[in-house]
């Protein structure tokens, strides 16, 4: 049995144990909130599903969704990159580091602007 | 063999940069707190003085070169290129331009320094120095330009600056009118210059439009074209150098501050025409007929201006007419193909005319801006330095040996005689006598006799050092400048003419010692007669004379200004009025107004399409796309 297999096996087992543990812990210790909005059909801040179309509604959820999309695509980009990493060599590595760093600056900006604070 | 030296470009650049800096300083502060006059004065003098030192450097580098290699050039950048023609912003220093450079920067610097004192207390002090620097810079471009086009830049520059400076005290309408007159008359001359330049280019400009190429190709110019070019260029020269028929602006140019008059008359502007003719000596040498005309016009101008000069009341106008008269000599000189003699007179004239003007300025300031000589008198005791220097200047102007003016004027008269222009020579001698007369008339009336205006006399006092020191320096120059071109009969070697030889195309006439002695003797006799008449009439206290008959005619300058006004200005105004009243409103305005109205109606109609609805705009796009697709698909089939 090669070292890589042992390592990856350990990672998978570790993850398999860690994820349920975290879920349980959050269920036990996390704050709870309930109410009408929580039970509404959409969780995106649209509280009233029927009625006039030109009413105001919160965009916070969409903002987060778009931010998620950016980092999601970052992950998507990394798949083809990882496949051809050997051909790309050091230059390819640097390129990806630059890419991630750019997104990181974006993340810092978002954090400082308080976009992630759910007010 | 042309040597490339890069510092050449800095000579005009320094005063121009000075003008820019001073102008910006003045503009920035003209409404708020004023910058001290001292700062303006120092900054204003730096550029000209530095240029003078660089001119010295140019002169000595040229001297260090073999005679036929005395050409320094520098191309700063390509100014413009159209088709086959490249016009570089190029500078050329050869013996001719080096001499011009030297005295332009030298006299110019002195005038700048003098202005520090003269302009004291003027509200537009900074502006004055900015203009003065610009003036000098333009003149340096004119002198240093390596071809007619660059020369033209400087040519127009000095024209503009003369306008700005003559009308400098623009509160007085007559000053503004004088500035306008100078500008308009100069424009007429400029037209001649531009046309001449055009013909010259058409003739031989294809193989390079700088002096050296033109000189090499000059023999390819056909005689008729050559004559046309020479005459047109001379029209330009008559404008700038105040010759018949365009001399009328120069006496009026006295409206400007006195340093400006000195600068215009001595160092810049008026010498430009003579310089230009000498510069194109390779053309004039091919067309003797043109030279003949130049010489005659020059001598007639000298005569006419000398007559006018005898009747003037205004100290500056006397000097102004003397300048016109001396310029006539210069043109007579270059006209009879004695280019070096003409340029030599330019050179000596720069010293004594600057001196006379600055001295006159000193008198004017001492009497609180009084310019009428009949209000002066006996000032010898009050203004000793001014008197002495002005006397030296007067002697030089009148052609008293051994002062500077004597040698240069004699050189011209001798050249005229030796080349067979006996009549021109005779007029020249008469004019020399008249010059001596009006010069000493002025000096006697102003400095001798008794004071005519006792109150002004009592308040008069000698000018400050910053004004008298330039006077003394110029006086020294006026005494000794003539020895630079001492002819053989006085034991000299005509160094000046030899120095200029590489730049000019001229043949020195050989008339023999007899003719030379005749010329000298005639000049001296004319001088003595002129001075003695002036002495008899004016050394004793006399009141302002009343002129009658021919004298009245002369006093009113032969009514030339009135003639021009009646023959040219009035009909011109009449035609203008006729057009503006009859043709303009009905033939031009009506259709233009109608089409304009129609156009505006169309525009208002089009506003409808800018409805402001996004959906409408999107529909426009779709329609556009559809039409385009339709057209494209049709072209496919």
């Amino acid at each position, binding site marked *: 049995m090669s070292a890589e297999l042992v390592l990856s096996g350990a990672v998978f087992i570790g993850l398999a144990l860690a994820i349920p543990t975290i879920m349980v812990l959050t269920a036990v210790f996390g704050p709870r909130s309930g109410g009408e909005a929580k039970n509404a059909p959409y969780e995106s801040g649209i509280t009233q599903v029927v009625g006039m179309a030109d009413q105001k509604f919160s965009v916070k959820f969409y903002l987060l969704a778009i931010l998620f999309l950016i980092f999601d695509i970052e992950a998507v980009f990394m798949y083809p990159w990882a496949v051809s990493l050997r051909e790309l060599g050091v230059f390819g590595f640097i390129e990806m580091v630059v890419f991630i760093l750019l997104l990181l600056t974006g993340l810092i900006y978002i954090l400082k602007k308080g976009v992630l604070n759910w007010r | 063999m042309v040597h490339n030296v890069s510092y050449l470009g800095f000579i005009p650049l320094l005063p121009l940069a000075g003008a820019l800096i001073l102008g910006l300083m003045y503009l920035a502060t003209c409404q708020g707190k004023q910058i001290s006059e001292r700062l303006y004065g120092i900054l204003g003098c730096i550029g000209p003085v530095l240029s003078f030192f660089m001119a010295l450097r140019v002169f000595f580098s040229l001297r260090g070169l073999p005679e036929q290699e005395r050409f320094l050039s520098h191309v700063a950048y390509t100014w413009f290129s159209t088709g086959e023609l490249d016009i570089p912003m190029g500078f050329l220093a050869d013996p001719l331009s080096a001499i011009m450079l030297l005295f332009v920067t030298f006299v110019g610097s002195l005038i700048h320094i003098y202005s520090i004192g003269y302009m004291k207390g003027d509200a537009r002090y900074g502006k004055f120095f900015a203009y003065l620097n610009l003036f000098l810079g333009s003149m340096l471009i004119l002198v240093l330009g390596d071809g007619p086009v660059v020369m033209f830049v400087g040519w127009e520059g000095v024209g503009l600056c003369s306008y700005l400076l003559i009308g400098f005290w623009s509160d007085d309408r007559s000053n503004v009118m004088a500035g306008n007159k100078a500008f308009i008359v100069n424009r007429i001359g400029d037209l001649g210059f531009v046309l001449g330049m055009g013909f010259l280019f058409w003739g031989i400009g294809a193989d390079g439009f700088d002096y050296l190429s033109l000189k090499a190709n000059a023999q390819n110019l056909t005689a008729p074209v050559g004559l046309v070019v020479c005459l047109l260029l001379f029209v330009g020269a008559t404008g700038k150098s105040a010759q018949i028929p365009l001399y009328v602006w120069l006496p009026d140019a006295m409206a400007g501050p006195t340093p400006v008059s000195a600068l215009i008359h001595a160092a810049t502007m008026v010498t430009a025409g003579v310089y230009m003719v000498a510069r194109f000596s390779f053309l004039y040498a091919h067309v003797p007929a043109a030279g003949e005309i130049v010489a005659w016009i020059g001598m007639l101008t000298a005569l006419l201006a000398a007559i006018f000069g005898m009747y003037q009341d205004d100290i500056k106008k006397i000097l102004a007419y003397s300048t016109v008269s001396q310029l006539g000599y210069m043109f007579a000189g270059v006209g009879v193909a004695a280019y070096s003699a003409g340029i030599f007179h330019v050179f000596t004239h720069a010293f004594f005319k600057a001196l006379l003007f600055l001295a006159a300025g000193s008198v004017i300031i001492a009497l609180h801006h009084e310019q009428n000589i009949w209000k002066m008198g006996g000032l010898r005791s009050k203004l000793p330095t001014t008197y002495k220097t002005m006397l030296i200047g007067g002697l030089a102007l009148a052609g008293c040996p051994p002062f500077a003016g004597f040698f240069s004027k004699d050189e011209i008269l001798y050249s005229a005689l030796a080349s067979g222009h006996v009549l021109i020579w005779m007029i020249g001698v008469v004019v020399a006598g008249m010059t001596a007369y009006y010069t000493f008339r002025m000096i006697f009336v102003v400095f001798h006799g008794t004071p005519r205006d006792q109150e002004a006399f009592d308040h008069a006092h000698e000018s400050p050092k910053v004004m008298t020191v330039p006077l003394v320096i110029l006086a020294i120059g006026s005494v000794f400048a003539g020895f630079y071109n001492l002819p053989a009969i006085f034991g000299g070697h005509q160094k000046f003419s030899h120095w200029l030889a590489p730049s000019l195309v001229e043949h020195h006439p050989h008339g023999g010692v007899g003719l030379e002695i005749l010329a000298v003797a005639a000049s001296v006799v004319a001088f003595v007669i002129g001075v003695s008449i002036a002495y008899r009439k004016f050394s004793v206290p006399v009141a302002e004379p009343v002129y009658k008959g021919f004298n009245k005619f002369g006093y009113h300058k032969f009514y030339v200004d009135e003639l021009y006004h009646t023959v040219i200005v009035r009909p011109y105004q009449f035609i203008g009025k006729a057009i503006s009243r009859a043709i303009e409103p009905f033939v031009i305005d009506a259709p233009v107004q109608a089409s304009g109205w129609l156009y505006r109606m169309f525009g208002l109609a089009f506003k409808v399409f800018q409805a*402001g609805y996004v959906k409408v705009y*999107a529909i426009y796009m779709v329609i556009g796309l559809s039409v385009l697709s339709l057209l494209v698909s049709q072209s496919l089939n």
Partner: protein
Amino acid sequence: MQDIMAILPLLATCAGAILIMLVAAFETFRREGISILGIGLFAFAFFVQLTVENSSPIMPYSAIFNGMLVTSTFTKAAGLIILACGFFSAIAAQTYFTQNRWFVLEYYCMMLFAACGMILMTMAAELITVFVALEIMSLAIYTLIGCDRRSVIRSEAVLKYLMLGAFAGAFFVMGSVFIYAGAGSTRFVDIARAVSEGGFIANPALVGGSLLIMVALLFKAAAFPFHAWVVDVYDGAPMPVTGFMATAVKTAVFCVFANVLLINTELRDGWVGYLFWISVLTMFVGNLIAIGQNNLKRMLAASGIVHSGYLIIGLVAIGSDTVSNGAVIFYLAAYAASTLGIFVALSYLGGEDEKRIRFDDFNGLARVRPYSAACITIFLLSMAGIPPTAGFMGKFYIIAGAFKHGFVALGVLGIISSILSVWYYLRLIISMYFREPQEEFGVSEMTLAPLGTFALAAAVFAISFIPVVI
């Protein structure tokens, strides 16, 4: 490494944008500081662009990044114009914010991002890259227009631009798809090869694809019949943004337009016939819209349409010789200097909330602010094409190029249009010089915009001395 060197200005702009973004996030600087930083970064990027060695002529392509990008003296000149426009718009913005009491820290960041997209666009040699660049630019511009969120006018403008821009963007993507179907690649080099092998007319996918791309580019260039948004959007945008849009965006779009037409002479010739009519209609419709306006900003927007018409005249002859290529970029420089000059001047003359914007509001300006009025006159004369300004030289080169390549009718119509345009340019000069002032012009605080105006006025003359051959 060569490739990296070639895109150094792009990287500098991008790094500058990110720097300002972070600075804005940490709120290290206040308004004044961040303004100076933005101006400085534009200046820095300009000098980086200036130092990039670039001697290759416009044809053939000197491709970098595997043919994704192209660099030439043409792209370099366009980059310089864009960054200079950014610099002066930033100066205008600094003053504008001093007067207008609203400010967003990210303003300069968005400007730099927009410049980044524009520079990428000038260098793009591949359709997807063009699209990405176009969107980087457009998104930043949308944000800039709408950054004053309290204002309804700004929101309306950004909505119009966003919707129509997205519409045009869709055309572009559709066109790219068609071209990919026809040529099997999105790189310009391969498209050119496909055209020269198979022929242009014979390949309907290429024809349709290039039609759609042309429409998208004509939309961004504000050419008839895709011009309608211009007046409303320019009017709605804040003054410095309008100036930036009118100059830098136009430069970038025309640069990429030229690059697309340069793909292949056969492709270009296929389009010249249509561009002829589009150019003529653009000029005349622009003129007609402009004369009806009483609002200065709307007039300038409409005159921008007219100038697009001239530039399209320049495009019909592009690629045939170096002078024609140079003429377009020269015109862009001349136009940018004069148009931006007016917008910079209006930024500080307009007063709070751009209340001074109609022709009549400028009555008697020459008496109150003579230097500013003189500068505006210079800009207007340059736009009208009166010698000795750069605008005249630009028109001269463009129309001379049209004559030289046999488009005599186009040249003549260009001259006629130029004469018609004098109408509305002179109107402002008349207002400024020959009318009595109605109200007092407040003298604003000492800011940079007047200096920028003077610099641009000087540039209007300086540019006319630049030799046109690229």
